[in-house]
């Protein structure tokens, strides 16, 4: 059987090359992310560093680890999705050939073994290539992390021999998993189908497609209702992973149900595209709903992830900006090195709140294990802070924020169980201290999550931000001019916007590192799917030309059809992403009571236009080359 697999492989190399390419790049990407993650997790802290520097370094590695886990998770999901969709598609394209084997005496088991044998072969070739391609991919990934300062400088990712086994094993495994369902379906092919001209006239919406589609849609709905839309406020980090929670099951469900959407979009296109060519295009689109849906699948993944992760991040940023601008009740912000340079003495100033951000560590003990986790807090004077900020105290009293005390905004995870009066073991400025919780504040997206008593401020704390409230009659420009002798002065709006802009930059960097390579992979998968789809259409194109279409008309029709497929991908991907962003919006409202929803339109429009162009060009080129042979030689021929 493996011999036959080898021969079919040699003969249909275009389709198989596409399958190998998806495995190769998928393995390269997963391998690179895995190596980087392992390197971040096991990175040694060089001896001789000061305690503070060592702490900052290990903290930076922790951050890189979190990011790389997401990168790895995303890359693995996308690789499995793309490979299985490509392999399933390639099998579906070969129904006629498989029916012929059945006619010649192949049993169901033999067809399955043939396809699995092929998958092992392709998976193996793809993995070996992927191991090699993974090296430059890793260099690029590390360069990106370094370039955006998302990993400590000098972050080094060593090659590890065991990755060979992991890469080949996982490459072969995902290839085999990819054909398993398809091979089961293919083994049910009836020998008689070999005699029908269009072997692909089989039913597209199989029971398994319905089941997978509906189960995953229901799963997504349940997760959506339980978590982002549930009544309990979710921690901020959890809100941020909504795309993985909601969009991923939706992507799987939609890709199973996508053939249902094909006639709908076909009808829509029919309204726009009139005339003979339009009719022909729409008919082609609908006649092979599976082909259309399979080509749309990688487009959907690209759009769904970019839009849902991008939309989530910008929505959270916007929520933080709005929250902060509503919370600060002041006019100007002065930044100084000293804690009390005498800002309150300036004419027209009615209130000043001096604030400085400091890092401290919380000590956690579980059984015998003790470890420290860094946290950021704002050292404030409770009275002045309350005067210049809208503070919502849930429990306790902010005025108690004296001595070794903190006020907590339960936004992340562990803090949520804390109560007023609890004592937290902590480390500040290298010394162990016990801090008392003086007040529990309302949750926040923008931060700060901890307010620290002024007595906890280490001597070297700073720079200090002084939020200044002016007398209602005072001239802000004059006051700003007077305050500028202490330090840099900004209006509160400008200050909030600057913080938001800084966050936006960070968001952009994160998205490039998180999505960049994986989305590049989906773009290649899109091109690949278009090529595979066209490979089985030479006879169909030839028949159209014999019927009277010119070569140009055939190519134009193929391009128009490809745009309908892009539209399907955009619609489904957009839907999967909308659910995520909507979930995030609801979760934010539950958390801080703000109604915020932001869509990164420029990014999405560029993405949609880019995809449309890539698909149009690919399908024009493939249709042009598929019509190179004079049609009459293909219409009668059959291999």
């Amino acid at each position, binding site marked *: 059987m493996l011999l036959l697999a080898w*021969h*079919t492989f040699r003969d249909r190399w275009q389709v198989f090359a596409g399958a190998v390419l998806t495995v190769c790049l998928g393995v390269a990407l997963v391998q690179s992310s895995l190596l980087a993650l392992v390197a971040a997790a096991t990175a040694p802290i060089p001896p001789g560093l000061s305690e503070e520097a060592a702490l900052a370094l290990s903290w930076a590695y922790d951050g890189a680890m979190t990011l790389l886990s997401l990168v790895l998770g995303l890359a693995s999901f996308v690789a499995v999705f793309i490979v299985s969709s490509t392999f399933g598609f390639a099998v579906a394209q070969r129904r006629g050939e498989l029916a*012929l*084997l059945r*006619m010649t*005496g192949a049993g169901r088991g033999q067809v399955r073994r043939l396809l699995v044998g092929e998958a092992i072969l392709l998976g193996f070739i793809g993995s070996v290539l992927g191991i090699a391609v993974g090296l430059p991919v890793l260099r690029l990934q590390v360069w990106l992390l370094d370039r955006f300062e998302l990993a400590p400088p000098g972050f080094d990712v060593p090659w590890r021999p065991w990755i060979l086994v992991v890469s080949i094993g996982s490459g072969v495994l995902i290839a085999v998993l990819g054909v398993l369902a398809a091979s089961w379906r293919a083994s049910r092919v009836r*020998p008689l189908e070999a005699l029908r001209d269009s072997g692909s006239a089989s039913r597209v919406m199989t029971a398994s497609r319905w089941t997978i589609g509906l189960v995953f849609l229901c799963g997504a709905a349940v997760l959506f209702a339980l978590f982002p839309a549930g009544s309990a406020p979710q921690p901020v980090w959890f809100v941020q992973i909504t795309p993985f929670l909601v969009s991923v099951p939706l992507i799987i469900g939609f890709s199973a149900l996508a053939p249902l959407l094909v006639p709908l979009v076909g009808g829509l296109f029919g309204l726009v595209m009139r005339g003979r060519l339009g009719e022909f295009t729409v008919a082609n689109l609908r006649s092979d709903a599976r082909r259309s849906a399979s080509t749309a699948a990688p487009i959907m993944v690209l759009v769904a992830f970019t839009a849902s992760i991008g939309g989530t991040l910008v929505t959270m940023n916007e929520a933080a900006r709005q929250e902060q601008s509503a919370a600060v009740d002041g006019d100007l912000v002065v930044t100084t090195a000293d804690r009390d340079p005498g800002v309150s003495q300036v004419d027209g100033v009615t209130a000043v709140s001096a604030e400085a951000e400091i890092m401290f560590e919380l000590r956690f003990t579980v059984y015998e294990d003790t470890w420290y986790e860094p946290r950021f807090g704002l050292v404030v004077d409770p009275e002045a802070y309350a005067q210049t900020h809208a503070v919502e105290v849930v429990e306790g009293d902010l005025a108690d924020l004296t001595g070794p005390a903190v006020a907590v905004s339960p936004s992340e995870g562990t803090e949520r169980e804390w109560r007023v009066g609890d004592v937290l073991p902590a480390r500040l400025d290298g010394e162990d201290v016990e801090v008392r919780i003086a007040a529990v504040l309302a949750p926040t997206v923008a931060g700060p999550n901890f307010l620290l008593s002024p007595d906890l401020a280490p001597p070297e704390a700073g720079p200090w931000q002084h939020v200044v409230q002016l007398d209602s009659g005072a001239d802000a420009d004059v006051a700003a001019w007077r305050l500028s002798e202490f330090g840099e002065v900004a209006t509160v709006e400008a200050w909030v916007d600057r913080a938001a802009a800084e966050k936006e930059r960070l968001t952009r960097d994160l998205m490039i590192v998180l999505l960049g390579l994986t989305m590049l992979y989906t773009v290649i998968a899109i091109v690949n799917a278009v090529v595979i789809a066209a490979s089985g259409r030479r006879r169909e194109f030839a028949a159209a030309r014999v019927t009277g279409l010119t070569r140009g008309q055939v190519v134009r029709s193929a391009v128009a059809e490809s745009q309908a497929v892009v539209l399907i991908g955009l619609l489904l991907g957009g839907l999967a992403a909308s659910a995520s962003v909507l979930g995030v919006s609801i979760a934010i409202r539950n958390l801080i009571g703000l109604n915020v929803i932001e869509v990164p339109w420029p990014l999405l429009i560029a993405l949609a236009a880019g995809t449309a162009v890539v698909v149009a060009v690919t399908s024009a080129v493939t249709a042009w080359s598929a019509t190179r042979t004079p049609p009459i030689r293909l219409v009668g021929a*059959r*291999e």
Partner: protein
Amino acid sequence: MNHTAPPPPAVRLDGVTRVYGAHGTAVRALDGVDLAFPAGSWTAVMGPSGSGKSTLLHCAAGLERVTSGQVWIGEEEITDASDDHLTRLRRTEVGFAFQAFNLIGALTAEQNVALPLRLAGRKPDRREVHRVLDAVGLAERRRHRPRELSGGQQQRVAIARAMVTRPAVLFADEPTGALDTKAAKDVLALMRSMVDDHGQSTVMVTHDPAAAASADRVVFLKDGRVIDTLDGPSTADVADRLARLEA
């Protein structure tokens, strides 16, 4: 032909009916067909388009299930045979040749011919494969791929592939349909010699009177029923009956 007791027919259909579609739009492609295809001889099935001749072939070969009635190949009933049973049957008892030659493009002539043996889990005997290819006159071209062969040659490879397992019955559906006159003649002569020299039971569907005239017997079908048979036909007889049938 001289034999004492008549051997069982190669294929037998008892009251076979095949209905396509549901109630309102049901089409009776076969309507109570009783037929026995004698062993060691060549029967042609003719009829106008839509008469059910292809359906008859598919049902007789176990490629399609019958709605009612019974189908026998040799002494085995295959009416409700399982897929495994039918697969085994395709490996040993029946061979197929179709209008579209249905060779596997990736494999050479030799490999195509050896395929049924491989699928049956037997190690193909090279000499046996060569002998069969030689019998169809293609020993020289055994290393060629289908696309490097002419239509007539491809059909002869397909017949060689059908014959390599020494099937009890050869089913052929318009085997000359896609061939020019000369190639068609060669293929018919080949099939004739297999019947005469090896007693190959053959069932062939065709609409070409010249092809049908090569057979020992012609069965005429119309609207899913057998309406006539003709023994030792000539091309003129067949054409004449067919013309009357279609009138």
